[in-house]
């Protein structure tokens, strides 16, 4: 048994060592032979990627035993002791060589998923290559839990973090080695979206472009600022974005597939934000050592089945339902030792449907300041402090915050509070006055800085970027989110999602003012609306009040919060709210999406495809097609006369 142990994956070994695992590890003859072959290969390849190679050798059926997920919803997850696990830092992905070498057109003969040719291949030929393999693995969410069956990239949850550089084009080969015979409510098909990269459409993870197990796909990330066509080179540096995340976007199954772990972070650096703290030209000198002073916080929420047969499986039967454990970087209520200096945290809410309301609570139970420097990957013009309200993080939103731990004495603990309480299950006194343990998402233990640890960075600059003047739109367009019609459905502009239908066409290089209107009358649905490809500026927000009969009583302007003044790609849209945003569509053409990022709603078809085209002739022709189709469906035209004349407005 010791012979195949190495080849039979670290997961298998983990399983065997697990004290909660009463079953002895039984291996039949067939597995033994298979295992020996893998062990032989693994002995040659002694890298961290052993498991990946082993999986490809077994033809995509990795030896992680399928889960026996509980079918009835547990009233709560098993109990966990707070603050026993250290906050894990997602491993940085390592570049590798790819075989077969990536090509501009899809390499169908070698099993690449069908796609359009890479449109930016010759302009931004990729120079750094990564391999990311989706496969089952076991992950332990807490010391008190047995391992949990997940679908992860390269065996890591959260997935490895890609650390990239503007001007250094990158290519990631996403390989699907998910098992087709494991009965989980997620589906072994995927299409990976880099949220919200300035990515050519064939690499953007369109919801209908998923590929099955055994296939792979090269996503080409040019790593350029938007505005290449106008600015030349690698685009307009004012458009820089920093903190991205990548996740599965498979139509109908985005929620289960993300719940099962198919996501990770992606960071881009440039001279302004170089990924270190040395005084280099142009650097803002923010805390910047990945994993040391610049730490991703990957927020997730789950519900677990009772521990059985050496596993604590996730509860998942279809759409993702109630959750009661808050998870950061793959651990429940972790702790992190921090030195008395500034740290940068890149927070991303990976959903699936839960909104987070985070605040920093000091040892005295009072809220302490967090400085927000970036919203949805974009630096804000002037950093602002959150100290009298929680920071609301809609699904898929990212916030980069800086916490200065020098304000706390060494030996004290500081807490990250989540407004909604989670289920803990063990009786623990309040860690700080007025702070119940269920509301604590994680703990920071403050210590003095050792001489070897990087010294504190200078104060946060009061201005991070010069926000350009708002763009002047060429035309305007309205997206109405409703729940109406016959039959009653979530609709966008009167229609349900159809991945084969285009509902809006824009011209490359043009800019538009979009109104996002949540006109759902019944219920009070909040939709975190996400627009692929381009960042937008919020111009205004208004709220409509209606009487019981549904008549409009008043329309009031709602003042924008500081976090809405910067550029965004997730727009929180409470019931009866209207947001006016402006965007410009640059550099690439193809199919993109606008959708609600509550992944359950997204899977319920609250999504629309829109296309970018590069000639006015094509724009007019396709807009006319849309109007004709709408008229056939008994809907009012969207463009009217303008679609005939070729004018944009």
């Amino acid at each position: 048994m010791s012979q195949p142990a190495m080849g039979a994956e670290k997961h298998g070994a983990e399983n065997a060592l697990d004290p909660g695992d009463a079953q002895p590890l039984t291996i039949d003859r067939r597995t033994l032979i298979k295992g020996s072959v893998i062990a032989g290969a693994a002995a040659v390849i002694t890298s961290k990627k052993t498991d990946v190679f082993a999986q490809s050798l077994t033809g995509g059926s990795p030896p992680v035993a399928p889960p026996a997920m509980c079918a009835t919803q547990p009233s709560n997850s098993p109990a966990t002791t707070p603050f026993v696990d250290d906050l894990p830092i997602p491993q940085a992905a390592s570049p590798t060589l790819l075989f077969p070498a990536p090509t501009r057109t899809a390499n169908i003969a070698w099993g690449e998923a069908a796609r359009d040719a890479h449109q930016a291949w010759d302009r931004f030929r990729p120079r750094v290559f990564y391999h990311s393999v989706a496969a089952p693995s076991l992950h332990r969410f807490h010391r008190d839990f047995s391992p949990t069956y997940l679908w992860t990239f390269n065996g890591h949850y959260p997935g490895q973090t890609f650390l990239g550089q503007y001007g250094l084009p990158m290519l990631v080969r996403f390989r699907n080695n998910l098992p087709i015979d494991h009965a989980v409510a997620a589906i072994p098909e995927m299409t990976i979206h880099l949220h919200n990269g300035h990515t050519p459409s064939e690499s953007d993870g369109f919801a209908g472009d998923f590929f099955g197990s055994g296939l792979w796909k090269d996503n080409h990330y040019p790593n350029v600022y938007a505005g290449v066509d106008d600015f030349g080179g690698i685009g307009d540096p004012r458009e820089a974005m920093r903190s991205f995340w990548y996740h599965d976007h498979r139509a109908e199954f985005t929620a289960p597939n993300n719940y099962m772990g198919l996501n990770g972070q992606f960071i881009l650096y440039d001279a302004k934000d170089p990924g270190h703290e040395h005084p280099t030209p142009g650097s803002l000198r923010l805390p910047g050592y990945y994993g040391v002073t610049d730490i991703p916080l990957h927020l997730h929420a789950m519900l677990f089945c009772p521990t059985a047969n050496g596993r604590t499986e996730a509860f998942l039967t279809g759409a993702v339902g109630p959750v009661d454990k808050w998870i950061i970087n793959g651990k429940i209520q972790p702790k992190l030792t921090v030195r008395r200096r500034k740290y940068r945290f890149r927070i991303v809410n990976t959903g699936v449907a839960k909104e987070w309301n985070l605040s920093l609570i000091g040892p005295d139970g009072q809220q302490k300041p967090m400085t927000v420097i970036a919203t949805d990957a974009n630096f804000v013009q002037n950093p602002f402090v959150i100290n009298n309200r929680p920071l609301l993080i809609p699904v898929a939103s990212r916030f980069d915050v800086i916490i200065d731990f020098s304000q706390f004495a060494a030996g004290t603990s500081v807490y990250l509070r989540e407004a909604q309480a989670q289920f803990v299950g063990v009786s623990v006194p309040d860690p700080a006055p007025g702070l119940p343990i269920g509301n604590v998402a994680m703990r920071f233990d403050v210590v003095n800085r050792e001489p070897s640890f990087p010294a504190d960075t200078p104060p946060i600059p009061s201005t991070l970027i010069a926000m350009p003047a708002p763009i002047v739109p060429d035309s305007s367009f309205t997206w109405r989110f409703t729940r109406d019609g016959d039959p009653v459905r979530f609709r966008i502009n009167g229609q349900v999602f159809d991945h084969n239908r285009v509902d809006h066409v824009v011209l490359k290089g043009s800019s538009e003012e979009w109104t996002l209107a949540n006109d759902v009358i019944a219920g009070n649905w909040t939709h975190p609306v996400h627009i692929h490809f381009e960042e937008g500026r919020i111009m205004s927000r208004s709220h409509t009040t209606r009487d019981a009969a549904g008549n409009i009583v008043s329309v009031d302007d709602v003042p924008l919060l500081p976090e809405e003044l910067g550029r965004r790609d997730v727009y929180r849209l409470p019931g009866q709210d209207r947001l006016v945003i402006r965007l410009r569509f640059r550099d690439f053409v193809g199919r993109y999406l606008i959708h609600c990022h509550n992944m359950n709603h997204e899977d319920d078809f609250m999504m629309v495809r829109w296309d970018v085209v590069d000639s006015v002739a094509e724009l007019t022709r396709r807009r006319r097609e849309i109007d004709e189709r709408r008229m056939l469906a008994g809907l009012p035209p969207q463009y009217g006369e303008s679609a005939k004349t070729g004018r944009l407005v």
Partner: protein
Amino acid sequence: MKRRELFTTLGQPAGACCKPGASRMAALIPNAVFRTQDDRRVRFYDDLIKGRQVMVLMMYASCETYCPLATQRMVELHHQVLAPRMGKDLFLVNVSLKPEQDDPAALRAYAEMHHALLPGWTFLTGDRYDVDTLRYRFFSHDHIGIDEDVEQHAGLLKIVNDPVGRWFHADLFASTRTVLEHIQWSDPPKTLKARLRDNRKLQEKIDRDRALYGFRKIA
């Protein structure tokens, strides 16, 4: 793309790929007793779902707008594309949302009116409690205003593939191509060879689209 291409898995036994007994569905799907349009008593899971690929459509006989539209849509799809599979490896179960009104005779009359007494088609009525349980399991939005209102669930299609342990949904009011693709997504997983063949065909389709229209028209 030819309609025929959408259903290349004809003849592949349901769940041929999968381990027996791998289904989680038995515990998720109610196994209550329902009555069919022929007043036959059936157990929902054991007799209608177990080991099969089944489309479940919520309707009621007195519904005047979208239920008949949905039923007509399914009848069209049946005749155009699905007929070779229906009753063999694909089934359609229509469940009455208003079981108090719909006795087997009423369901039979509704089916006859829409020419829907077709191979593989079943119409069901039963106890209100069982219907509600079924409706919650399949269609719950986790939103009380929507989940309490049976009208909001009429005309919705769930596609259950018991052997692979997954369910899917489709909006019958999307385009025919899209509805058929959604049904196809629920087919038993194909062999790697078949997946690679489909992938090659898809690439040919993309290239054809680009040659014809200059852009990728369909997903």
